[in-house]
């Protein structure tokens, strides 16, 4: 691993990644040129540090940083466009004030861009899958809480409660098996997760809630209907 500072230090021979806030290279103790959206002052590496060795991103970010002044250095390019979009809309003092800003009249008009916002090392989880994972940790909580040094995040309880209450399937694997083939019909991972979380009864509900699919309706309505039928079977055990 080479030093991933945007301007590699000439005498930085060692191989280490800067801490993600890129404030200080821990090897050569020189300040990197900041090129990231987050100026996190606290220590600890963050996802901003480059996971994959995308040395080419360095040069691109350099000019982009000057142009946009706010970027996140992730390994996928798609994130950059979303983040710059976020930076722009941040300037417009956006939606928390009432949602009448650009193109927010009908939120469904905005294409569902969840998956475009996620870099490669992020994976969408269905609520039922998350519930299983978090419950597993909860089961060990008694043992974990005996050690005062172990800290659990404050949001853990709320996340667990939400996952359990919104999880409508008892068997995440079977749901995953039913919905996974839809990827071959043009659905993205995030769309599949939204479908699983909502647990629609018919394909009409799917198309109503995911307008990004409407453009492809003629092509893949049948597989979706088939999947919905199979999901409905899960509701009533045979």
């Amino acid at each position, binding site marked *: 691993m080479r030093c991933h500072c945007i301007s590699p230090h000439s005498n930085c021979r060692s191989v280490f990644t800067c801490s993600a806030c890129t404030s200080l290279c821990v090897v050569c103790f020189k300040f990197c040129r900041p090129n990231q959206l987050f100026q996190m002052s606290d220590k600890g590496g963050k996802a901003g540090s480059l996971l994959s060795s995308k040395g080419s991103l360095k040069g691109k970010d350099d000019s982009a940083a000057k142009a946009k002044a706010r970027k996140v250095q992730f390994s996928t390019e798609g994130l950059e466009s979303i983040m710059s979009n976020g930076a722009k809309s941040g300037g417009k003092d956006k939606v928390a004030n009432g949602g009448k*800003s650009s193109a927010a009249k009908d939120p469904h008009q905005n294409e569902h861009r969840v998956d475009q916002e996620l870099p490669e090392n992020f994976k969408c989880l269905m609520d039922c899958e998350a519930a299983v994972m978090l419950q597993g940790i909860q089961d060990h909580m008694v043992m974990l809480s005996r050690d005062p040094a172990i800290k659990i995040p404050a949001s853990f309880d709320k996340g667990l409660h*939400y996952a359990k209450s919104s999880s409508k399937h008892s068997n995440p694997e079977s749901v995953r098996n039913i919905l996974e083939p839809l990827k071959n019909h043009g659905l993205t991972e995030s769309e599949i997760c939204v479908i699983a979380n909502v647990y629609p009864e018919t394909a009409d509900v799917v198309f109503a809630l995911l307008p990004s699919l409407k453009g492809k309706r003629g092509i893949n309505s049948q597989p979706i209907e088939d999947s919905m039928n199979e999901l409905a079977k899960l509701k009533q055990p045979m």
Partner: protein
Amino acid sequence: MFLKVQLPWNVIIAAENLKPGSLMLQRAILIRLLSDFAVKKATKDMGYFLAVTTLDKIGEGKVRQHTGDVLFPVIFNAVTFKVFKGEVLEGVVHKVLKHGVFLRIGPIENAYLSSSKMPGYVYVLGENPYFMSQKNHKIAKDVVVRVVVIGTKWMEAEREFQALVGLEGDYLGPISSPDM
């Protein structure tokens, strides 16, 4: 929605925790990682940090000059929660006001559903106020409502998200609990 993320972090171990014996060292690294993770609470990019699931790799430690600490690069998997624009979610109403309601969606305490985004609903004043639609659908405290996220806002100072949600669209609104 919930996300599973793989993250590289740098964990700094103070010199006094560096005892001989790799097990104690691994424990110290893990404890420190969990502590940093818990303190972090949330980031704009990954959402709310919920739990560390696995620790994939602990890299070679580098000694920091002048302080004597050792910095270990670690790679771990974690579960986080983040809402996205356009996502369909279910929230629980916890406050009803004249111009809208506040919902709780997982770790997000304040997802605001404005009355202007509740077509067909009118405010009904009372000791326990609520919103009622023409079809007698009620949005009151502790009711689960399926909403679409119109926008999100990251509050750096409080390290939390706020969301603006709406009911404009088909199949959105209060949902009744299914019969089991």
